[in-house]
């Protein structure tokens, strides 16, 4: 159950890194300037890597209008975004701001009406569904709000299936599944049928499934949305570890604790980027104390 389960397991050997380490840039992060307003950036839409060669995701002028029964909603209205390798980015914003639409576009589950997306330097907004499916299996893990688990399959099979499809051996798939479920406090649910789980449990299984192929990029929409405080902590611990391995995370959240775990928060509003800021602890030399918060109250 605990996150150290199996650390000294004689079969698997002691303390091996659970995700292979991806080299992480140690260069100073000269990011694109953070707009205070939603004015579209003037950065030229150069295909390929970012200005410092490490953009995992590059998005320019993304527009998506949803049409239904005569009415049209412009869910995304010109979004520019660069995400460097190894960054942990939280996307916040009120309901209807376009967060899920953005994530769907980034994961290839929906297509933009305008704008471009580069993934690992490769233009992907026009890829076929089949190519996207391959990308998602190999290098992009996705957790969506409504965890589309295969409801009649066991938890273990749900998590192992993508690994097997990607060519892992049965043993590898089982090992990774056990580790992930263990870390998420779900070791004892492995044999349960997915449909019988609570919403919060399904959400965590979906996260395990998204991570089982050790993707370089994780896209997650409200991954802690229906979790209690303890499960949220488990998920945060797993995400933090994943991030520390040099992997990239873009997640949508309303939970300030989750957002503050990220190193950067992008705020969407009305389909545009309203703010994009690094999250930092209190200024150097000044520890946060409860006084900082309590003083503000009553």
């Amino acid at each position, binding site marked *: 159950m605990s996150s150290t389960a199996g650390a000294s397991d004689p079969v698997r050997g002691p303390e091996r890194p659970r995700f292979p380490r991806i080299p992480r840039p140690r260069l100073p992060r000269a990011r694109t300037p953070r707009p205070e307003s939603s004015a579209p950036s003037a950065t030229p839409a150069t295909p390929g890597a970012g200005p410092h060669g490490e953009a995992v995701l590059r998005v320019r002028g993304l527009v998506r209008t949803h049409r239904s029964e005569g009415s049209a909603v412009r869910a995304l209205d010109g979004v520019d975004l660069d995400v460097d390798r190894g960054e942990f980015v939280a996307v916040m914003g*009120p309901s209807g701001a376009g967060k899920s639409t953005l994530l769907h576009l980034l994961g290839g589950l929906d297509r933009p009406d305008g704008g471009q997306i580069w993934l690992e330097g490769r233009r992907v907004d026009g890829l076929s569904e089949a190519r996207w499916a391959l990308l998602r299996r190999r290098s992009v893990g996705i957790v969506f709000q409504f965890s589309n688990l295969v409801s009649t399959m066991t938890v273990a099979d749900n998590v192992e299936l993508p690994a097997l499809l990607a060519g892992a051996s049965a043993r590898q798939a089982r090992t990774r599944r056990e580790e992930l479920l263990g870390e998420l406090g779900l070791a004892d649910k492995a044999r349960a049928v997915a449909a019988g789980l609570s919403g919060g449990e399904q959400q965590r299984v979906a996260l395990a499934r998204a991570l089982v192929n050790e993707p370089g990029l994780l896209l997650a929409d409200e991954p802690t949305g229906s979790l209690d405080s303890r499960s949220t902590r488990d998920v945060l611990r797993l995400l933090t570890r994943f991030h520390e391995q040099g992997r990239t995370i873009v997640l949508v959240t309303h939970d300030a604790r989750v957002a503050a*775990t990220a190193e950067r928060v992008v705020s969407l*509003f009305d389909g545009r980027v309203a*703010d994009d800021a690094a999250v930092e602890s*209190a200024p150097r030399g000044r520890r*946060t104390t409860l006084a900082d918060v309590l003083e503000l109250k009553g």
Partner: protein
Amino acid sequence: MRESLLALLAKEPAHGYELKQALEHTFGPAYPQPNIGQIYVTLGRLEKTGLIRGQDVSQSSRPNKRVYEITDAGREELAAWFEKPTEGPRVRDEFFLKLILAPGTGGADRLALINKQRRHYLNTMRGLSRLAAEGRDNRVSQLLIEGAMLHLQADLDWLERCQEELE
């Protein structure tokens, strides 16, 4: 702090320094602690109003120390404090004032104010997460930090509402 000291003295008599230690021990390192000077000043006031009674106790090699005990009036005061429901935190009116008054002043626009405030909350939240990780074994601290986090969450949610309504 008055009430904290009264509550500690309702359990047993103590001198100023013992009270400081008891507060630290009870609430843990995360809680903002009064310094010894503030404690002595408060004890002086409590004594003057008859809620506690002090008595000098001589020590062989050091100056006298003053040991305090709670009086009946002090116990009544404490009971009244426990009896009274506690006001919830009030909405942060200073930020709200800025937000409402900003347009037209040329000083700041609302989006910039909201963004600045959101960044501040998130940074504070990050500091709290770190604080929580440091003092994992102190349950009282953990609970306090969790409370502070929930307040911050509410502040952020409200900020979002302000943005939706005013932008």
